[in-house]
């Protein structure tokens, strides 16, 4: 971002001062967050009410409160709600993961794949699919093991008297390509049905996700998202460079490791539950940043944007293409991509250079 824009950002918002604390409230960010939240709730309601079996809003609310009749209880609580909750959490987790990495590396192209995570998790999952013919839970476990192991290898290889951001990225790219080649090789060697399963997993989907997925992602998000918000406050300082951050009292090496670990953890559980919905991690933070007009990492708007993109995408594939069960990654890519194209074209016509 250019210098004048940063100055504008510095004076934007309202500063609240009391006797003990003072903090700045960015009004536009708050408005954007509330608007995003409203749209997410709207998408959620449409998801719960429409489908093969139409329900009214009061029926859904009754079912949510545990007072519905048998049919609506089953449809809402067993079929639609767990899938919706999984989508919300996965979307938020991936978006925050991407926002952290983009901020740490100062690069809009950064997402969990630059540290080898996405390709590594795909390798784990494809190995389980091809060699063991595993269940959905086993595939998820394979993805987590593969992703975390690859990221750890990248971090260790990049470690040389501390981890320098740029070296981490380059080594992440190198390792990613090895895993990518391995994946492509496995897909050419697998039987056609295994290859199709592997391909579908790589696109990322929410078909048939139940409470067991929602619980795992929920538990992980409950731990990791607050941690991300806590450490995320230091991201603005880290963006000024290691030496400036150190001068302002941030232990940059330790903070970077913590943030990378949180980012990998979030990407890991999300990938385990829904596969690598990879474009989400890249696009959601960028979209959120453009809507709020802020320069910082903006983890909360990014999380809301991620949740919105994934649930809206899932709604689209469920309703538009039924009965074909397309993976949600397709809709997320199309939706996020088109929205980003529109936003960019719109922004540039106004002549806002960023």
């Amino acid at each position, binding site marked *: 971002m250019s210098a004048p824009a940063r100055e504008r950002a510095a004076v934007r918002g309202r500063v609240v001062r009391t006797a003990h604390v003072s903090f700045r409230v960015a009004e536009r960010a708050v408005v954007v967050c509330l608007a995003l939240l409203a749209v997410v709730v709207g998408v959620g309601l449409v998801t719960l009410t429409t489908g093969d079996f139409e329900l009214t809003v009061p029926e859904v609310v009754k079912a949510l409160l545990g007072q519905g009749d048998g049919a609506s209880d089953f449809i809402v609580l067993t079929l639609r709600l767990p899938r919706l909750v999984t989508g919300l959490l996965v979307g938020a987790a991936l978006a925050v993961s991407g926002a952290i990495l983009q901020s740490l590396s100062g690069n809009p192209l950064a997402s969990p794949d630059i540290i080898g995570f996405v390709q590594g998790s795909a390798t784990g999952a494809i190995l389980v699919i091809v060699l063991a013919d595993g269940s959905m839970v086993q595939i998820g476990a394979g993805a987590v093991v593969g992703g975390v192991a690859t990221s750890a290898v990248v971090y260790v290889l990049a470690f040389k008297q501390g981890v320098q951001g740029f070296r981490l990225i380059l080594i992440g790219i190198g390792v990613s390509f090895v895993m990518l*080649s391995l994946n492509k090789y496995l897909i050419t060697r697998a039987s056609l049905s295994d290859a199709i399963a592997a391909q579908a997993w790589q696109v990322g989907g929410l078909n048939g996700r139940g409470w067991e997925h929602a619980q795992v992602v929920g538990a992980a998000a409950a731990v990791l998202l607050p941690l991300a918000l806590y450490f995320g406050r230091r991201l603005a300082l880290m963006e000024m460079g290691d030496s400036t951050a150190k001068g302002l009292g941030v232990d940059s090496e330790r903070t970077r490791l913590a943030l990378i670990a949180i980012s990998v953890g979030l990407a890991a559980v999300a990938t385990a539950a829904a596969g690598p919905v990879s474009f989400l991690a890249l696009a959601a933070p960028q979209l959120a940043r453009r809507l709020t007009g802020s320069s910082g990492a903006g983890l909360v708007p990014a999380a809301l944007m991620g949740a919105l993109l994934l649930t809206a995408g899932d709604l689209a594939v469920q309703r538009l293409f039924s009965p074909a069960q397309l993976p949600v990654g397709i809709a997320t890519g199309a939706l996020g*991509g088109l929205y980003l*194209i529109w936003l960019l074209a719109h922004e540039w016509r106004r002549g806002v*250079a960023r």
Partner: protein
Amino acid sequence: MDTAVQARPRGGTGHAVRAVGLVVAIGVLVLVFVLSLWVGSRDIPFASTWHVLLHNDGSTEAVIIHDLRVPRGLMGLLVGGALGLAGALMQALTRNPLADPGLLGVEMGAATAVVVAIAFTGVSTVTGYIWFAFAGAAAASVLVYVLGSSGRSAATPERLVLAGAAITAVLVAFVSAVLVLDTQAFNSFRFWDVGALAGRKMDAVAQVAPFILVGVALALGLARSLNVLALGDQTGKALGANLGRTRALGALAVTLLCGAATAAAGPIAFIGLTIPHVARMIAGSDQRWVLPYSLVLAPILLIGSDVVGRVVIAPAELQVGIVTAFLGAPVFIALCRRRKLAQL
């Protein structure tokens, strides 16, 4: 990212040293090329390889060498050089070390067109894909460039990068949807998608060579302007550089190079992104050296990988797209750890 501290172009390396290095690299390239003519699933002694290469006597050996290995080696030379140069160009244009030539949407455009060709037109030969892939690559990169420059000023790096990412995502979505719904198309596509040089004949070489040669000439001619571009838009403009023209010509060169390479061999992602970094580690950040180094180093890796791919699981073959990353990544990682990283 505090690359500024780590990465100063090393002042000690004079032009003479870099020229000698380039000559050595060319020598290695020639050696690797000869090796690719000699090594293969059929054992042909080195002496007779040489003999039939010069005197096409119509024997089985001569047919193998003239019809299979020479075109394959030439294709490796063209594709490797094109990808390395396109990568260096793309990173210089966008001033982004993470940029690969696929970023302009070229590779995904090619892949989309190939999927369309397989799924809807019934084209099923590798040479049949070439024109589809090329048309797709050109269309996608024009789209990215138009979107990237649809503002008041000319296309800036970040706009191009984001526009490329956005359009790539839409194309990925389309390709995935087609492949999920059409399993037969997926079955053909997965073999194109790994990237390979096997089975490329002389007619395919002749198809892509003109595009790549024009692209190479265009790219090398831009080296000076790219050096000015590296100083930033403001300084560049003050020095009288025509930024818009440099970016437009650069994008055209990337499209020609990467489009033709992808059409010929499928997507081989590793080379375009990493070779320019190796070139900068050796030659500093002067584009007049980075571009030629990338042009020479990339085919060494590609042809070398192709040779290894023929040997490791002989008599079967490992596709070059797979071997490239396995062979190249350890070297790349070791270099990243050893050397100071050169900035853009």
